[in-house]
């Protein structure tokens, strides 16, 4: 992947950019985010299938939020997250430059959200086969089996909030789970509190989740909680034709309505 390293080196040496946020090889070769500030460190940069942490999480971090001379090495999910964050006024044009990768691996420089939005339109927006298979496996279960499955998963959760921390859309300074007046979600990690937490998290991602799957990846106990946000994302598409991360100016699916929204359960 040396043309990425060359590109990074060239950008840093040009003086126009002071920081490259990309991926490097971590312990036993696993990819992890890296913040390159010096040209000679550019050789650390890698980019392949395993680089899947969503770098968009760092865009609004205090330390680098106001650094206008930063470059983001973005995989497909990060691009979609950037578009969605732009739609939600968390990042603004000119905050950073994005390096994306075309089908054939060429590096594309994207400077404005308009360009990113156009590029994202060419990407695939559904779930991967494996993810769709997992969804189907659960949806085919009976109601009781689904409850048993999720009750068991929620019982394991230790409420470390890695799922929240790894999701770029979870940028609220005080998350609702931390409000104790009233106590919306119980703090101890018993099954009921975990269920309420994960349902709330999924609901708060309605029309916003770009299905990057990082919440599932980040969970130390590998709970399949990304399926909850996938369910809400798929429903937003099916009911309201709203796909997160495709437009920088679209309103959130639940913020608008159509008189002819179709449902069959209201008496």
């Amino acid at each position, binding site marked *: 992947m040396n043309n990425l390293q060359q590109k990074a080196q060239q950008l840093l040496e040009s003086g126009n950019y002071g920081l490259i946020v990309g991926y490097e090889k971590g312990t036993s070769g696993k990819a992890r985010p890296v913040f390159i500030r010096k040209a000679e460190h550019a050789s650390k940069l890698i980019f392949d299938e395993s680089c899947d942490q969503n770098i968009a999480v760092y865009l609004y971090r205090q330390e680098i939020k106001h650094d206008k001379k930063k470059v983001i090495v973005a995989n497909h999910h990060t691009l979609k997250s950037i578009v969605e964050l732009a739609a939600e006024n968390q990042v603004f044009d000119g905050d950073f430059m994005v390096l994306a990768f075309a089908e054939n691996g060429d590096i594309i420089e994207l400077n404005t959200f308009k360009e990113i939005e156009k590029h994202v339109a060419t990407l695939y927006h559904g779930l991967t086969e494996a993810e769709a298979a997992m969804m189907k496996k659960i949806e085919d279960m009976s109601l009781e089996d689904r409850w048993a499955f999720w009750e068991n998963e929620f019982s394991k959760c230790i409420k470390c909030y890695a799922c929240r921390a790894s999701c770029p859309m979870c*940028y609220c*300074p005080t998350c609702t789970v931390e409000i104790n007046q009233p106590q919306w979600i119980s703090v101890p990690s018993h099954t009921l509190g975990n269920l309420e937490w994960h349902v709330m998290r999924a609901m708060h991602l309605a029309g916003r989740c770009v299905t990057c799957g990082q919440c599932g990846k980040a969970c130390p106990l590998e709970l399949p909680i990304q399926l909850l946000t996938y369910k809400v994302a798929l429903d937003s598409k099916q009911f309201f034709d709203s796909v997160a991360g495709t437009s920088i100016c679209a309103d959130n699916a639940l913020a608008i309505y159509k008189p002819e929204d179709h449902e069959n359960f209201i008496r």
Partner: protein
Amino acid sequence: MARIGVFICHCGENISATVDCEKVAKVASEFPGVTVSVDYKYMCSDPGQNMVKEAILEHNLTGVVVSACSPRMHEPTFRNACAEAGLNPFLCEMANIREHCSWVHEKSDATTDKAIDIVRTLVEKVKRNEALAPIYVPITKTAVVIGGGVAGIQASLDIADAGHKVVLVEREPSIGGHMSQLSETFPTLDCSQCILTPRMVDVARHPNITLYTYAEIESVDGSIGNFNVKIRLKSKSLDEKLCTGCGACIQKCPVKKIPSEFEQGLGKRTAIYVPFPQAVPNKPVIDRVNCTYYIKGKCKVCEIVCPTKAIRFDQEDSFVEVQAGALLLATGFDVLKTNFFPEYGYGKYEDVIDGLAFERLASASGPTKGEIRRPSDGEIPKKIVFIACAGSRDPAKGIEYCSKICCMYTAKHAMLYKHKVHEGTPYIFYMDIRATGKMYEEFVRRAIEEDEVKYIRGRVSQVYEKNGKLIVRGVDTLLMGQAVEIEADMVVLATAGIASPGSEELAQKLHVSYDKHKFFSEAHPKLKPVETNTAGIFLAGACQSTKDIPETVAAASAAASKVAGLFSNDLLKRDPLIAVVKKCAPPLYSSCTGCFMCIPVCPYQAIDKEEIKDRSGNIIKTISHINPGLCQGCGTCVAFCKSKSIDILGYNHDQVCAEVEALLNEW
């Protein structure tokens, strides 16, 4: 610690018949925070209310729960009682144990237990109530009336007479609207010019009314009491102060063949023109589309002949900003043109005209000086066929409503025609005659019996021209559906009344809702016919739906009284149960993330952005802000906000959560 007073009402025996009120009072006295819990036969009576007042004073209560009927019934009563005793009215809640409990269940422990649950819920809620004061919004006592027809004129005069400033904005060069185009008006046949022109002059002369003609609304923002209206004054190419209205330019203007809009194209006008003789203001306007100077760059005859040198060829559009407390829409209606009707020749036949054109023919100041003549060859028609319901009541043409006024003006047209052309025979094809106003039915009977107007009940299927004659082919349903064919000299279509062009764009500028026919929507069809859902914007006349002149004037005066009512006090008192974006100590300042996803949620566009700045003025963060003037307190944004940064007074998160807990647990 809360000191709550609980008062259980027997409501005679409406409640005590099925609910054990003593037990409820006893159990309620045990609730945490309750200091006094009594039951009484008639809480809403004076002694009942006095009980509450005394309890407030004696126990220095911090909250009151009156368990009786529905709050929709006596909440104001008890809140006023509490206010009189010095307790903030919003610290008084009602527990509905009558409509929602005693009246709908049999006498049983379950009913009493349910009443106890309801009381406990409201006690928990009232403990979390805050003392609130009504919101007072300062009002600019100026009204902007949009549309200078009879509705706008009447409304402006009423508001101005009530002592408030009015800015009347009219799109055409003169006020008067469609009424000024009419000849005589039903049912009294008095000449519309004679009854309207004095009012138009009153408007021009009224000290409280500022009149802008040939002007349109550019933009409106702000809210009730504080609208900021930007008005575009289209360039008249004339300095109005210098112009005396002598009319020299009009006589000398070489371009004389422009079809006059006022005359519905039947008469001609010059490039520099005044729509009609009694125009107010009686000063001309240059029609830049047809004026040779603007086409070829030469001519300037008007400039030469103008005694006061008032012509300004290079005058630009100018803008005026007006602060207003209320807006009044009086933009009127329009009539469908004949080219809408394929079966009547797509407007190809010159002698097939609409009702408004016939009015011009009949009008003394019209192109034919009041003589009914055919537009094609100027002959006096021997036979005229009037076709009622042309477009109206026809779902296939997308106009399913009845336009209300055509039956009457068609009868009038036929009557005028008979008065002017005694030997003429008017036919009217109709479906039903809707003459519902005062003296209306008598008017139509007179047309039928005295003026021998031939009414044929049936639809006209086709009108076509054959060697100078108009063959009208219809049916007479009262003669067993026999086909009828009339060789007429002229056909007048009573076409449907539709929304005036541009009403949709205006509605969008004012955020006023409108129906699928582009008529403005009233707040409530029966109870608020002259208001819109947007606070501070009122409706008058045909812009809401087609109306005759009496109804339009009545609606205009009604809307004007609403405006006057609004302006009657300096501050507008508003219920304080509105949403507010929560703020907190620095460095966070507010949990609001500035995502602004809530802005499209608000049906009243009450949510805007607020910049939090530090002392030296640079922006720390931009968060949502709710305009107290606009917010009506629906709470949709409160439940939508992910970080729970918006809360609504009276139904805040804490209260509602406490109610759910209190309802499902016992302590």
